Every structure is written in C-alpha cells, then in structure tokens.
C-alpha cells in the first residue's frame, strides 16, 4: 500500500548547499534548480516530489534540518518545546545558620581544620589528586563525606579535579580541592574557565618549596604572585592567607561564603609549615553560611546592569543553561566575534571584586600606630614577624606589622596609608621576594625585601637581627618617593552602533554537509523517541568543531576546556545523579589531549555516555594530524602522508574496561540512532565512536571532495557486527585493508555492542596492519 505522499519543502534560509540530498535520496526527489540563491549556489528543490515514497531518510541526512516534510521540522519542534519547559519556580540562596560537625576544643592540623571547616560551610564535593603537603585534606574528606551525603573523588590529575569542580559547581554543589604549587599550575586552564564562568569553588593551595619538585617536604610561599597572575587573563579573584590553625578554620568558611557571594573561585593559601602544624582550635557550635542566589529566569551571567553578582541556576533547573569558555553574553551564548561584549564581560568581572575591596580587605594592623618600620607579612611568616616585633619593642625599636589575611584584591590602600607614616617597609618572605614587588608599587616609603628561599620557615631571630643591623642604616638617607600611578585612558571607541543580540539557535556554523548536523538529527530523534525531559539532559563538550555542537542543542550544555569534558561530566553526574549526562566531543579533544582523562572516565564507569565524533583530524584549527588520522593520510601537518599508526578508539575503550562500546559511520544514521539509544540508556559508561571524516580538513586533501563521496566510501568500508563474525579474518583483511580484528572480545562479553567498520583511505599504501 502506498502511503500518503508528503508535502516536501526546503527551508532555503537553512540550506547550505551540500550535495547530500541530491545524491542520497533513493527516489532522486531533490534536484538543483537553475536559480542561484543568496548564498551563491544553485538552489536545491524537491523537483520530483511525486516520486517520494515517504521513507523519511532525508530527515536524518540533511545536516541543517532544512528539508521539511509535511511542515514537520525536528529542530523547530525541540526549540518550541524549550519554551514550555517548567523552570524551577522558587528563588533560593542567602545566609543561613548551620550546626558544625565537630564543635568544641580540638587539637588538629591545619589541613584537618580546612577540611572540617569546608564541610561545615556546606562543601559536599571534593575532587583531588594526592600531593604533599595537601593530601591530609583528602583523607578527612574521604572519611567524612559519605556520612553527610557528600562526594569525595580522587581524580587522575589536578586538571581533571578542577574540571570536575567546574561541573559540580554548575550542578549546584559547593566544591573544593586541595593541592600544592605544581598541582595548582596544572589547574590553571580550568581555573580560568571557572573564572570566566563565575563558578563558586574553593581551592586550597598548601605551598611547598618550588620551583618544580623542589623540596616537596619543605615549606615556602612561592605562589603568592602565581595565585593571582597564574590564570591567563589576569582576572581579579579573591586570595585569602590565614596564618594559624584557628585562622585556617575560620578563613576556610570565609572562603566558601565569599565564593558563593561573589560567584568566583576563591583561593586559600597555606604553607607546608602551617598545613602540617597541629594546634588547639576552638570550633563554634554554629556558623553562618551563604548559599548562592538563584532567581528563576534571571540572566545567569554578567555583566549585570548595576555590577552586582548574577543569579546562578544549576543544571536541571530548566533554565536552558549554556556555559562556555568563549566570550559569552548574559545568557551564556557564545559571542566571540563581538569585541564590545568581551570588554564588557572582563571589565564587569574585575569590577565585581574590586568595587568591594573595602569590604574584602582583611588585614591586621599590629602595633603600627607609632611604628617607624612596618613589616608587611602573611601566613606563617606573620607569626615569625610578630615574635621579632615583640623582641624588638623590648629593645626600644618602633616596629609594627601589617598582616595581610586577604592577599588579593591587594589591600593597596592600607599599604599606602601606613607607608606614609612609617619610614621603611620590610617584607620577609619564604621565596626570592615576590609580594615585595606588589608592595613596592603602592608604598610611599622605601621597601626592603628580606627573602629566605631555602624551604624552611623564617626564624624570627633572623628578622630581629635584620632590624637590629641592616634595617636602620638602610632607610635613613632616603626621603620621599611616590608610588607609580596607572594611566587610565578616557573611553574611546569607534561608533559601531548596537551590539547584536545573540541567542542560542538551531543554526550551526558547520561546513555544508558536515556529519555533525546528522549526528544531531540522530541524537534528537533518539531523545524524542525515548521521551526524555529536556531539562534533565546535560551535554558537555570540549574544544573544537564537535565541541560547538552542544551550543546548538536544546539542552543545558557546557563547552569546557580542551580535553576535559569527561572529568567535567563526572563532576556534574556525581553532584546531581538524576541528570542524564552526555559528552559529545571530537577525536582530538577526547583522544589527543584528553586521552588519559577519557580512559579514566571509562574505568570509573559512571553512567555517562561519551560520543566521540571522529573526523580524523583537528577540524577547527585547520586540519592538522590527530591521533586518529589514518596511516598515509595527508593533513596540514603531514603533507607527505601520516607515518604513524592511528589509535583504535574502540579497542582502547575496551582496554579501559568500558562496558558499552560501539562504532558507527555517519553514513548509517538509522543504525547510529539505534546505537545512541542503547548507549544513552546504558547503566554505566558507554562509548560511541561516530566515524565522519572532516570534509574540509581531511576530505579535500585525501581525494574525497564532497559529502556524498564520503558517505559512499564509508558505506563501502562498513561491516555490520553480525557479518564480521561470519566472515573470516583473512577475507576481511583483503576486503578492508584497514580492518582490525576484535572478534574475541565480542564472544566473551555479550553486552558489548560493536559495530565493525573502518574507513579506509583511497591511498593504496594505507594499511593499518601490515599484510603477512
């Protein structure tokens, strides 16, 4: 029986002019017309719509969803559905009082004080990687988290911990990590991501003796400038520097409250000498904690009109939350090409902190009223200075101390104020002199650095000795100096008119005929069939072409840093287990830079679906060779052919104990949809490799000049799992030069759904396994 013939229409606004409809429609409905459209190609039209058999294949293969049958458009349906999502109805957040877990007098180490205080302040997510001298915080977290419904996870490195923190923060948790100088530097990329997306979190950095491995059991304060200037972008953020163990308890709570109030990562600096120090601590019965403010439907990012902190929804609130490391507007939508938006964003993020500098400044002015010499100190060294000052005062010397408990935003006004009335400023530091330069910038009197870069805490007698000998002589002959001022130019900008409004839309920026659109069709169709609520789906991606796909999906999504979508997704899933977490990223992201992290994602076996869009190259950056580029293939960085064997992603994932592994070429959209459905529903880590060579980066250079040619080639190389089991290995090898045998795994593990099929290049010498 012949079904009703559908009414076929092509949305010319969406059509990008690839040749997929012309070549793939089994009934050859679509033809090129003589008319040339606004984009410069001959329009595609459903010329022979009378031949249509209503198979519906075009719904899948049109990457842009431009072919509309019976005025039904999958993309539009989803975007309409978005409008109807029920948003969380109640605002939340603000101050509340909580009971502490360990009230009373305790004798604990600095690390333990931090961990306990974090739990009291509401921290329920801790991700870390072992490093001296911060490891003890992990022990406490691992021990206590299960009892209070929190999550402790030891990640595979510090950057992964930081990515997990970003994910959990967006999923609503108050996260924390603890590390040391080398670990902190690994975290920087994701820290900058957290800074630009205004994610509340606390980083405890217990410093040791740097640079490099240095003296891992020594102490120091080698990161006092790195903590502020380490992350690229020089973003203003809060850095606290407690000194005693008692202070560590209070300042950890303060760090959490500030992080939540200002929506910013807060760094708490310890030193090995006080992180390992054990002292008596008085823990109050009750403390005040602040929870981030959420107002339904308010813009989730800055800049805000009055410079205040924006509302912070979490994934699953139905806010259609878009998170990206790119320059973004108030709704989180990327607008990387609008310079005004970027300037507005970074200026707002700086102002958010700097405008509150008076409130944030926390310094102790110790015996400064009549002081001639001012010691500026912080952390453990402040205790050393205090002893020296007491002794010096006994000898009649007028010395005082400015103890910096907030290191950044730098309490510049306090230094200015006191340096005007003192004759000399002395800065003892457990490094080669770092804060010295910062103080010098705002001091009215001469600044002397007293560095001690040996990895030991500064003996107070050393400071005393300096005061008694050198210090006095040095400053007597120097008169008034002025601190430098920063030239703040008046605003000037070429008139450009209105800033364009940017919002998340189904229109993708991808090349005509790109497989990413087809992957999106399959994914949306599959989600539609499963009837999953859109607000319960979160998609994480990394960097690259594929990573931009989630911006054009109707779910909460995050465009994380390069290689880190899986740790990020881990954070989201652990903090909010009822969300469906999907990772969609490219081969370069998941298997070049992020190979180690992807392996650990599989090993951990959390219910996350990872979809790797394997396009054989680095697509967005210009078609460079990737870990998946076939042998012999020409790329922009292997112009004479790739000489290295590619990674076999399926086997790699099987080796990493992933329980669901599949591979499918993009040319089999219906099979792909079936695989995606199984993967998304799989209770455990599932991995799907979607093979779809990049047209511009790979195809052009390897004699595949059109999308339809790629489809043809993929279909030739494709072997279904069932078939592969029947054909002998030798036959397969002959038939598909690049076939890799996985048959044994299939026999042993029924769960594993493996679609065999491997794209083989046209080059004759391509062969992944040498012929015997």
């Amino acid at each position, binding site marked *: 029986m012949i079904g009703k013939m559908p009414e076929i229409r092509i949305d010319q606004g969406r059509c990008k002019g690839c040749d997929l409809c012309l070549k793939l429609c089994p009934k050859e409905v679509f033809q090129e017309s003589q008319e040339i459209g606004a984009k410069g190609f001959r329009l595609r039209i459903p010329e022979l719509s009378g031949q249509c058999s209503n198979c519906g294949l075009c719904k899948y293969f049109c990457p842009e969803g431009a072919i509309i049958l019976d005025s039904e458009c999958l993309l539009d349906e989803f975007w309409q559905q978005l409008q109807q999502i029920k948003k969380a109805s109640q605002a939340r957040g603000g101050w509340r009082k909580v009971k502490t877990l360990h009230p009373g*007098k305790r*004798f604990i180490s600095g690390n333990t004080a931090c961990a306990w205080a974090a739990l009291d302040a509401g921290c329920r997510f801790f991700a870390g990687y072992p490093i*001296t*001298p911060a490891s003890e915080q992990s022990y406490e977290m691992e021990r206590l988290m299960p009892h209070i419904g929190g999550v402790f996870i030891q990640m595979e490195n510090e950057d992964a911990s930081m990515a997990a923190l970003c994910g959990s923060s967006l999923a609503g948790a108050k996260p924390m990590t603890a590390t040391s100088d080398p670990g902190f530097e690994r975290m920087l990329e994701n820290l900058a991501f957290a800074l630009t997306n205004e994610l509340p979190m606390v980083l405890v950095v217990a410093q040791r003796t740097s640079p490099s491995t240095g003296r*891992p*059991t020594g102490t120091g304060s080698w990161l006092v400038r790195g903590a502020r200037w380490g992350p690229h972008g020089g973003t203003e953020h809060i850095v606290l520097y407690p*000194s*005693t163990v*008692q202070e560590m308890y209070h300042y950890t709570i303060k760090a959490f409250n500030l992080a939540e109030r200002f929506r910013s990562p807060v760094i708490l600096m310890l030193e*090995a*000498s*006080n992180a*390992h*120090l*054990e*002292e*008596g601590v008085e823990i109050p019965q009750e403390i005040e904690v602040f929870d981030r403010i959420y107002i339904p439907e308010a813009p989730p990012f800055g800049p805000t009109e009055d410079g205040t902190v924006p509302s912070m929804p979490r994934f699953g609130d139905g806010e259609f939350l878009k998170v990206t490391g790119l320059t973004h507007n108030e709704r989180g939508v990327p607008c990387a090409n609008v310079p005004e938006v970027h300037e507005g964003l970074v200026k707002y993020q700086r102002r958010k902190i700097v405008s509150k500098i008076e409130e944030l400044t926390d310094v102790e002015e110790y015996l400064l009223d009549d002081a001639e010499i001012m010691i500026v100190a912080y952390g453990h060294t402040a*205790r*050393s200075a*205090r*002893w020296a000052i007491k002794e010096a005062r006994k000898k009649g010397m007028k010395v005082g101390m400015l103890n910096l408990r907030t290191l950044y935003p730098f309490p510049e006004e306090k230094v200015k104020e006191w340096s005007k009335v003192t004759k000399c400023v002395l800065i003892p530091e457990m490094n080669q002199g770092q804060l010295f330069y910062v103080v010098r910038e705002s001091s009215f009197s001469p600044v002397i650095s007293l560095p001690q870069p040996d990895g030991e*805490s500064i*003996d*107070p*007698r050393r400071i005393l000795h300096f005061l008694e000998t050198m210090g006095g002589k040095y400053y007597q002959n120097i008169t008034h100096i002025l601190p430098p001022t920063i030239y703040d130019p008046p605003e000037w900008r070429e008139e450009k008119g209105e800033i364009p409004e940017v919002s998340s839309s189904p229109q993708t920026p991808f090349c005509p005929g790109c497989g990413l659109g087809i992957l999106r069709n399959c994914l949306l169709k599959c989600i539609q069939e499963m009837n999953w609520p859109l607000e319960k789906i979160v998609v994480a991606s990394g960097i690259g072409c594929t990573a931009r796909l989630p911006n054009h999906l109707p779910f909460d999504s995050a465009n994380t840093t390069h290689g880190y979508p899986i740790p990020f997704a881990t954070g989201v899933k652990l903090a909010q287990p009822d969300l469906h977490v999907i990772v969609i990223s490219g081969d370069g992201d998941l298997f070049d830079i992020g190979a180690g992290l992807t392996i650990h994602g599989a090993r951990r076996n959390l219910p996350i679906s990872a979809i790797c869009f394997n396009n054989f190259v680095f697509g967005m950056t210009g078609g460079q060779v990737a870990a998946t580029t076939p042998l012999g293939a020409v790329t922009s960085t292997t112009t004479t052919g790739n000489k290295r064997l590619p990674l076999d992603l399926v086997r790699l994932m099987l080796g990493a104990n992933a329980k669901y592994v599949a591979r499918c070429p993009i040319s089999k959209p219906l099979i792909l949809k079936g695989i995606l459905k199984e993967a998304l529903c799989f209770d455990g880590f599932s991995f799907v490799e979607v093979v779809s060579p990049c047209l511009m980066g790979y195809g052009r250079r390897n004699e595949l000049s059109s999308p339809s040619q790629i489809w043809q080639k993929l279909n030739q190389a494709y072997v279904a799992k069932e078939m592969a089991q029947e054909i002998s290995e030798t036959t397969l090898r002959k038939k598909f030069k690049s076939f890799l045998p996985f048959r044994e795994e299939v026999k042993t593990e029924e769960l594993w759904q493996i679609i065999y099929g491997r794209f083989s290049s046209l080059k004759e010498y391509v062969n992944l396994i040498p012929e015997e």
Partner: protein
Amino acid sequence: MRREIVIAGFGGQGIQRLGGTLAKALDNKGFLISLKSNYGPEARGGNSFSQVVVKESLEDWPEVLMVDILVAMSQEGYNAWISKTSLESKVFFDVDLVKTVPPSRARQYPIPATKVANELGSQIVANMVMFGAVAAVTGLLSLENLLVVIKKEARKFSDVNLEAVKEGYKLGGMFKS
C-alpha cells in the same frame, strides 16, 4: 611560660606518636600547643623528629627557637639538637642508643627506655617509657594526665603502653629526689 620540646630519633621508634601524645596531653591540660613533625620518607625510614611548643598566646611563634626539653632516642638525633640547648635545658636520652654524650651545659637524664620496654615484652613502647620519665622529671604532666591520654590514643594496645608509661614515670621519679 614558653616551653619548647624536641623529640628526636629514627623512623619506627614512635617519635611522631610520642610527640603527638605529648602534645595532646598538654592540650588537654589547657596549655596552648603547637605540634610540628617532619614529613616524608625521611620521617619513616631516616631521622625523625617532633617539635612540641607550649605557647604563651595563640599566635606565638610555633616552632622551636631554643630547646628546653630534648628527648633523644638516637645518636643522630642527639647530635642534631644538643647545640640548641641552653643551661636550663633538660636532655633525656636513651642510654642504650646514645653512647657518646659530649660534655654539655644542659642537665642530662640517661633513661634506659629501650631496655625497660624490652623487659615489658615490647620494644616499641620505649617511646612511652620516655614519655613517663619526661613527665615525671619536668612536672608538666601528672601520671593521671598520661594515663587518660594514652587510653584515648592507643586503644588497641593500651595495656602495654600504660605499663610502659608507669615504668617510665617511676624512672623519672628517681631523678627528682
């Protein structure tokens, strides 16, 4: 009054345990204490030390400047710290482990801790024998204080530890008279 105590020996003797127990006992008694231990493989397989400082105020310098009480359980530990003692210092050392005792201004207390511990049947409680002796001589802690903290800290092996600390307290008492 500020008191600075250093316990020095080698890894495995329970130096950190002794430091920690002493610090907790003093903390229980109401003193303001800072405890600093060395860390890493050196502390487990090489020279180990533990610093306990009784402070006058909370924010006082928490590390050792001049050793008031030195407890040496190895020759290396003795040699490393003896130069930091003064005329008023009290130096406790294990007679079987510290053989070379150069003339020093400090008051010296030879304690046969390892020997006593062996007699009790467990060499690892030598640190507790020392603990008892130090408490008795310095008068910082009463036997009651010691017993309370040991019961809390060494739950599994509290019997032999309690016995050791009692023996040590007796040994220390002999020096007092």
